[in-house]
């Protein structure tokens, strides 16, 4: 278990990026959902840049998604899959532990 950052580093209803073992992790904080925090890889496999944390979050037919800020494809925050074409983000197991965000792996 690793502490990635503090709750106060997160931006409500939006994303930030953390570094973990040289991997870039995009973290989204959605306080109104049950799970509250979500983490996927920051690398946009379609736009080929480290930008996923800067996308807009929302829902597509009840699935929580982030839209790539480059070319607007939607990625599921829970499974990491892309809804429009075949592409996949890595999903990281994260949770809030008091005032800290922890990564289970």
């Amino acid at each position, binding site marked *: 278990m690793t502490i990635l950052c503090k709750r106060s580093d997160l931006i409500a209803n939006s994303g930030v990026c953390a*570094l973990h073992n040289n991997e870039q992790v995009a973290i989204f904080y959605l306080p109104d959902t049950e799970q509250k925090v979500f983490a996927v890889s920051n690398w946009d496999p379609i736009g080929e840049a480290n930008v996923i944390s800067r996308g807009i979050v929302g829902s597509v037919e009840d699935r929580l998604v982030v839209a790539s800020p480059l070319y607007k494809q939607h990625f599921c925050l829970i499974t990491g899959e892309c809804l429009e074409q075949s592409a996949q983000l890595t999903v990281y197991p994260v949770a809030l532990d008091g005032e800290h965000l922890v990564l289970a792996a």
Partner: protein
Amino acid sequence: MSQIKVVVVGNGMVGHHYVSTLAASDIDAQITVIGGEPRPAYDRVHLSEVFDGKEPSDLGLVTREEYVALGVDAHFGDFVDKIDRSAMQVITRGGQVFDYDKLVLATGSYPFVPPIPGNDLPHCLAYRTIDDLGEIKASAQGQKVGVVVGGGLLGLECANALKNLGLEAHVVEFAPGLMGVQLDDGGSQMLRRQIEALDVKVHTSKATQKIREGDEHRLKMEFADGSELETDLIVFSAGIRPYDELARQADLKVGERGGIVIDYQCKTSDENIFAIGECAVQGNFIYGLVAPGYRMAEAAVSQLSSEPQSFTGADMSTKLKLLGVEVGSIGDSKGQADGSLAFVFSDERDAVYKRLNVSADGRRVLGATLVGDTSDYDTLLQYYLNEIDLPDAPENLVLPALDGQAPTLGADALPLSATICSCHNVSKGDLVTAIDGGCTSLADVKGCTQAATGCGGCAALLKNVVDAELAARGMEVDTRLCEHFKQSRQELFIIIQATQIRDFKTLVNKYGCGQGCDVCKPAVASIFASLWNEHVLDADLVPLQDTNDTFMANMQKDGTYSVVPRVPGGEILPEQLIVLGSVAKKYGLYSKITGGQRVDLFGAKLNDLPNIWQELIDAGMETGHAYAKSLRTVKSCVGSTWCRYGVQDSAGQAIDLENRYKGLRSPHKLKMAVSGCTRECAEAQSKDVGVIATENGWNLYVCGNGGMKPRHADLFAVDLDTPTLIRTIDRFLMFYVRTADRLQRTSVWLENLEGGLDYLKAVILEDSLGIADELEQQMQHVVDTYQCEWRTAINDQEKLKRFRQFINSNSSDPNVAFVQERGQPRPATSAEKRRQQLKAVV
């Protein structure tokens, strides 16, 4: 059958319609067309718009290349001088000879110049062709007074043209009233009042006896009553005469008062020769409008097919706007038929006159005259054309309704045979067929039937019919913003304004569903900003913003950002140029002069953005909103300050406008420009808002666009003083902000706006909706609450929190790498990155 040789003489509107109809049919014809004017057919009906800012080339109906592509052999600038009927040949002035199997005369008509001594002096002109326009313009250059002889429809249009050229315009009419052909006395008088109120001098019952050299002006006109009028130029518009010389020479039958006589098949007295359009006379009648000419062309083409059709006359009802005054005339407009009963309404305060003529039994409309208000035209025309039974109190059709709602004839009540678009001969039945054939929107139906793509007069009626038909089939036009909001952007705007909601959560819970998305969130953020103008990075707002707004910079392909400070009007201090240069050097940025007269610095790392902006702000610069759907730049030229032709200070005006509207969030980006004279170096006519200096103030153009689908801006108002200019732009922009769809530029917005430019003018210039004050106040609020977003952000640690590449590390993105090209950095390609990494390892 072998290919048939068709020769068409005249390439006016009707001749061209014949050629295009024939070329599109499956008749196997070899088409030759000979046009006397030096250019292919153009839209004569909209000739006057050239005085309103259009280019002659905008009027073209066809190009030489298009004729070539259709396999049409076209010759321009040569006149057919002779028809040899026995050899079946035509011979041109230039000596060319063409054989025909079928000959079509579409020679149109020419302006009649009354036989007044002196009518051939220089600066006595006519008005019919693009070349005439050039002569009128040249003659008017630097002059003061212009006279139009003739107070008919064309004469009044010409008077407007003279006014637009900056002349004091006079209309001299022989008869006692204006537009005597179409209007009764009451209507004619009301029209005169209105036109005089617009500063056009009207002289009726005046017979010109002589024209000679003037004392103070170039020419002097002497009238039968002893009075005189001095002027710099005269344009004759005293009626038209058919070009029938050719027919006379070939011994074809001509009418008593001229014109080539045709039968119902549009055949002349020689069965291999047709005549169509304004040169033809049928039953003693010359049809001086374009729609009947088109019908003749179609009928003449059909004679070559297995299904010949007839042309048996056409409706001459017209609706137009002369010098901004609405005029309509339907059928027997003056009530001359036996037993005709009239209902007349006259309102001298608002200058409205309406006359409805009905049959003796009160059941049918026979005709109508409308001056000052033609809103009833569509309804009355449908009653007339389709012989629909009148209600018991027909007067209600022309009286102002007490509850403010004019009775309209529901689209449902129209029979399938009802003509909706007369330019393209589209009936309600054609529309229904198109919808049954798969059209699901107004745009589809227009594309498929051509309806409303001619004069545009039928647009409102077309929309009614299409909407009604779609609704009847349970097809709703889908205007929902996205899956989270069933409202359109405009509806959401009204909701937010009325409820004063300022956060997304409340809005989506009350009026939408789900979590929102990358479509509705930025749209809502934009509406909030237009209305409340709070900082883009406020905690509630930041999750709604696109990445560009979130970081107040444009994201580039590699995840870096660009930096564009505002340079109002393109005017920049040397010190600021130096700072731009040193910042670019210090942070390793690629520098480029943009197409918007400013400087863009590319390749900034996320974590460098706050420091870069700190340095720029310290040098007195501010954000340029290059990242936002909001005002980008106001392009300028140097204007009267430096330029020898400039008539106003265009740079100063551009800077003032840019400072006023900077920061205004809108449905899409906004661009403006100000030029110092008509040479137009700032390209104002390609902008959303364009301003061009005149001797007397500023001309305002709106809804231009460059980009994917360029559109010339429309002239909106002329000779405005600066306060009026600002007030007009305030209203225009706010109305756009309120009513446009998301990501709809002003050009597309206007093209979809019901009622088009006239409606927009009514709303903005005449305040027809009574919202002008509110629009101005809303804009003033935006202006008063302006802040440089970057200045606010760099002074607020909470807002800067996000400008870190990683929340748990100070390193930067290792994937961002540059190589040098032409002395500046550019993003490395992936191959280059691999090489760089390899080197680092080795």
